[in-house]
């Protein structure tokens, strides 16, 4: 969680210093969800999918912080070779199936990974394959059609797919109740977790500022999925301390709301818990914070010193099989032309 917070705060600094560009969406405040679900409950071979607010999901899943920072700087040592950016972090080795810019479009992707696991068990005979896929998205996403299409298919095919809604109450400038109708006839609240049972899966609500509570709820959902009992919908009540993105003036959220959630900051909350329960001392925590600061500084140095992408990258990864660029007038496949590796070949 500390790494997540330090990393995100560093991103803000780097952005305002002109090292990072475009749309950057920071996760500060929501760390308990990422740590509670991913770090605490998932294995390296499990899958996660996210949205554009994906930096800390990547870190929790074990993706190298150096490679994430390099990606944000647009360098070729980045996770996506500088081709994805903040909103499109991918890491095959750690099962990060993507950050996605269009909210909702990552959910069927995670579902597809879960389908692949079910296929592995039921068709290919790997009965002990108990990997799971977890989809992360926000309150705004819960009105996108793909969300509902995926909930239905997850239950229908009994897939090991877990849906985690990080309800931070705001979709850019849309306060959740302004975008979402109440979830029941006698209800005045737009609860998201209540939509789970409507699609045949358990719906659970949890305090997303408390990492231990998130972990408890996530553990149960993950174990359920591993046993082959199907999907779960988890709604985590959380808050982002910064605006929607670094370009958001954040004028609509009231001071009282921000102060309320600042008081529930997951990091000092958990630090208190650890000290109170003898799991760590104050000086342990100080040492941890110092170490994290070193790690993040190292990431920035790594990213700064990394080279920019080569021009060859312009054409290289468009197709897995570069035959897709076709055959030129000379009868050769276009990728066979020398200009291809310099990014200067005629390909259309």
């Amino acid at each position, binding site marked *: 969680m500390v790494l997540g917070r330090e990393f995100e705060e560093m991103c803000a600094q780097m952005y305002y210093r002109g090292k990072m560009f475009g749309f950057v969406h920071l996760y500060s405040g929501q760390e308990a969800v990422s740590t509670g679900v991913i770090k605490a409950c998932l294995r390296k071979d499990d899958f996660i999918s996210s949205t554009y607010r994906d930096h800390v999901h990547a870190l929790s899943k074990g993706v190298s912080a150096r490679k994430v920072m390099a990606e944000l700087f647009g360098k070729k040592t980045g996770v996506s070779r500088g081709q994805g950016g903040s909103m499109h972090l991918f890491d095959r080795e750690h099962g990060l199936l993507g950050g996605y810019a269009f909210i909702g479009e990552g959910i069927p992707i995670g579902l597809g990974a879960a389908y692949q696991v079910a296929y592995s068990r039921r068709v290919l005979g790997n009965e002990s394959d108990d990997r799971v896929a977890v989809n992360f998205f926000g309150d705004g996403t819960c009105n996108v059609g793909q969300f509902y299409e995926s909930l239905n*298919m997850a239950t229908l095919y009994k897939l090991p797919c877990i849906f985690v809604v990080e309800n931070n109450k705001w979709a850019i400038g849309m306060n959740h109740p302004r975008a979402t109708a109440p979830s029941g006839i006698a209800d005045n609240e737009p609860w998201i977790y209540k939509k789970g049972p409507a699609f045949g899966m358990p719906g659970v609500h949890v305090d997303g500022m408390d990492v231990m509570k998130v972990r408890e709820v996530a553990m149960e959902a993950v174990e359920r999925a591993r046993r082959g009992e199907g999907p779960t919908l988890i709604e985590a009540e959380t808050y982002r301390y910064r605006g929607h993105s670094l370009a958001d003036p954040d004028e609509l959220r009231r001071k009282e709301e921000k102060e309320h959630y600042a008081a529930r900051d997951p990091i000092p909350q958990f630090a208190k818990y650890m000290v109170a329960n003898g799991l760590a001392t104050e000086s342990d925590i100080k040492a941890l914070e110092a170490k994290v600061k070193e790690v993040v500084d190292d990431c920035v140095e790594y990213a700064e010193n990394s080279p920019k992408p080569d021009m060859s990258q312009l054409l290289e990864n468009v197709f897995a*099989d570069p035959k897709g660029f076709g055959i030129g*007038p000379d009868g050769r496949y276009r990728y066979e032309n020398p200009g291809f590796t310099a990014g200067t070949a005629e390909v259309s």
Partner: protein
Amino acid sequence: MMMWEALREGLDEEMEKDPTVCLMGEDVGHYGGSYKVSYGLYKKYGDMRLLDTPICENGFMGMGVGAAMTGLRPIVEGMNMGFLLLAFNQISNNCGMLHYTSGGQFKVPMVIRGPGGVGRQLGAEHSQRLESYFQSIPGVQLVACSTVANSKALLKSAIRSDNPIIFFEHVLLYNVKGEVHPGDYCQCLERAEMVREGTDVSIFCYSRMRYVVMQAVAELEKQGYNPEVIDLISLKPFDMETISKSIKKTRKAIIVEECMKTGGIGASLSAVIHESLFNELDHEVLRLSSQDVPTSYAYELEAATIVQPEKVVEAVHKVCGTRVAA
């Protein structure tokens, strides 16, 4: 055999060979596919490999992408190609672009296939030609089959390809009869097919328009013309070797397509020909495309919307001049 049987045979062979190949779509399992392409296969391979999906194109297209990224080779069927408009988000953003955006980490070895084209009075929404809409999506290949032989051979290649392939079948061609290639024959996805060698004019076509052109050719032969007919097969990328060789020989080109004129496959091909073969041309490239109108239900209006053989004959007269039969 008929084209639907050839496609079915290709599908069956590839599914038997590779256990990661699976088909997902509406009514592909128990119903056997709206045009029988997967008829009875669920009995052999089971419900997971012939997955009957609910009606949620964008959702199941994305599910296919996720499955492809994590090791399967799914074929996603649009019951009618037109329905895939609902899956445009997943096809464009994830299918097409994901290999690049992930820095080459994830490949998407998918085939997206289904019946498209103008049928018999099916109305505007069931008569769409999506090849022009999907054209600009980077990272996908567009292939259109047209004969019994090439349909099976191309489908096998498409399934084996590591790239996402959008595979266009035509509603009116499923019952066309012909022979398949023997054995495990796979046809190259990037090459055009020479249908008829000639000297007077190069006629480029694809899918059902191949038959419309050949009908016109029967008439043109009687009139003493000798057209060269090339079936593009690969709508993206274009096989520039076959195309440029032909134009250098005949010096005249006509494109006959079923998609609409605006932004069609012909629009791209015409531009490329003019740009790269300008001095090889004696006449500007003629494009015969469908009218830029929704397809009517009424028979005569529908017929007037698409290219008919007479129009092809007229176009050849225009570029070649009138001829006296030998």
